[in-house]
């Protein structure tokens, strides 16, 4: 039986299709103002990549910020549960998940069975969420993905004194005006991001293995800065970390269908 998961986030919408434990297809699109439309679009793409049609899907579980508005979804599960489910499915040794989304950040601790022991969310302050990086990338005239790529070339990363996105923006502008290389700025931005997230992560208690999920996990600068901050390695997952919520939703769908 074929199961699917669809994760409608604030910035991107993701879908994953599973046949038992095998990944048949996946897709990622930018979220539009209409979550229902984004969900249909991403699902069509994922189905096409697996050469399937909607009729082949026995059950689809929805998650993410826009999960209540997905037409083809029969059941919804919170993002926290889905990230935990997805990460545990891929890598059962995972005990701590740090998920940085477009406008929030979550730290989740799991037991050996993959059950959630503790979690904490920040969605009040843009600093420490993907939005921080988005604002900074725009300021530097870079694509979000470039921020992680160029930070590796930094020789003297800047130190940002402010936590607040608004104040940090003023600091970055000042450094830009001084002619500071973009790589040094990007590295400082990634480090500031990691420092903020590390506080949240420590508050749930770090237990190894630790992994990062969500779009920001694709930024090697932030991942390395997190490793330095927390003093533990970040376990790399076998699948795009941005798909973790959708994968977890698909695993939930599969369990619901009675496949274990």
């Amino acid at each position: 039986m074929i199961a699917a998961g669809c994760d409608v986030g604030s910035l991107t919408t993701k879908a994953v299709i599973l046949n038992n434990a095998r990944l048949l297809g996946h897709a990622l699109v930018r979220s539009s103002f209409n979550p229902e439309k984004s969900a249909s679009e991403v699902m069509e793409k994922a189905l096409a990549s697996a050469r399937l049609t909607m009729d082949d899907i026995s059950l689809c579980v929805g998650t993410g910020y826009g999960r209540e508005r997905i037409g083809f979804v029969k059941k919804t599960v919170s993002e926290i549960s889905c990230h935990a489910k997805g990460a545990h499915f891929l890598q059962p040794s995972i005990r701590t998940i740090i998920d940085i989304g477009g406008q929030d950040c979550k730290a989740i601790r799991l037991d050996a069975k993959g059950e959630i022991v503790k979690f904490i969310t920040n969605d009040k302050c843009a600093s420490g969420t993907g939005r921080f990086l988005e604002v900074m990338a725009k300021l530097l005239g870079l694509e979000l993905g470039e921020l992680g790529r160029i930070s590796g070339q930094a020789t003297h990363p800047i130190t940002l004194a402010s936590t607040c996105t608004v104040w940090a923006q003023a600091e970055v502008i000042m450094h830009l005006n001084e002619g500071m290389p973009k790589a040094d700025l990007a590295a400082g931005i990634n480090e500031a991001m990691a420092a903020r997230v590390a506080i949240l992560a420590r508050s749930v208690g770090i237990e190894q293995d630790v992994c990062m999920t969500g779009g920001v996990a694709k930024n090697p600068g932030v991942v390395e800065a997190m490793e330095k901050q927390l003093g533990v390695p970040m376990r790399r997952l076998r699948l795009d970390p941005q798909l973790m919520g959708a994968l977890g939703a698909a695993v939930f769908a599969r369990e619901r269908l009675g496949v274990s």
Partner: protein
Amino acid sequence: MYVAGCDVGSLSAKAVIMKDDNIVASHIMFARPEPSESARVVMEETLRKVGLSMEDIACCVGTGYGRNAIPFAQACESEIACHGKAAQWLKPQVRMVIDIGGQDAKAIRVDETGTVVRYAYNDRCASGTGRFLEVMAGAMGIDIEAMGDISAQAREPVTLSNQCVVFAETEIISLINAGRELPDIVGGLHRALSHRVASLARSIELEGEITMTGGVAKNRGMFTALEEALGVKLVRMDTDPQIIGAVGAALMARQTAAGNG
């Protein structure tokens, strides 16, 4: 004897010249990138208004964010001490001052001599400072000075679900797209900022008569919104609330000069 106070803030620079118990001249201007430059220009403009030169000033005290860069200041005082001192001197019944600046907000409690007894301060988070209104005015394409008048026409002020400046900016853009009236949005922004500042003030407990200083106090929408958030009538200053810090610095200069002479 003439004394002066110079307040170099993040957004504007202010200077005041006093003779005896009177403010004889004052000037406000946008801050230049160099605080020392802002100080020099604002002081020159103020002196010019009364035909004086720096030699006529017995003592000048500096305050504000750039206070350590004022070349002609004999001494420096914190903004907190200056706002507290001046507000109580101008309105003797005042026991609490709420100062919303361009990059910070302060709640200050003073005794009957204008000496600070307790204070709370936020400069960590842009929400809860003047920057909140500045960013929102920019997002709506309106002049920040016009916000007070615009909010006077509000019928049903919006309730924002976000506190963070970055998230609230996105939220008001969607409110505009959803067809909400501009006055209702501006009114909602004043309420949101007032709630932030009111909780800062409550953290040191409300005491006696309260007044509001700083540039944001000129915004009548904010003035009323803060009254509503605190549940009290605020004391209205007869003096421009934006120069209160500089007045406080001048009062400190007067004390220093009297002590020296």
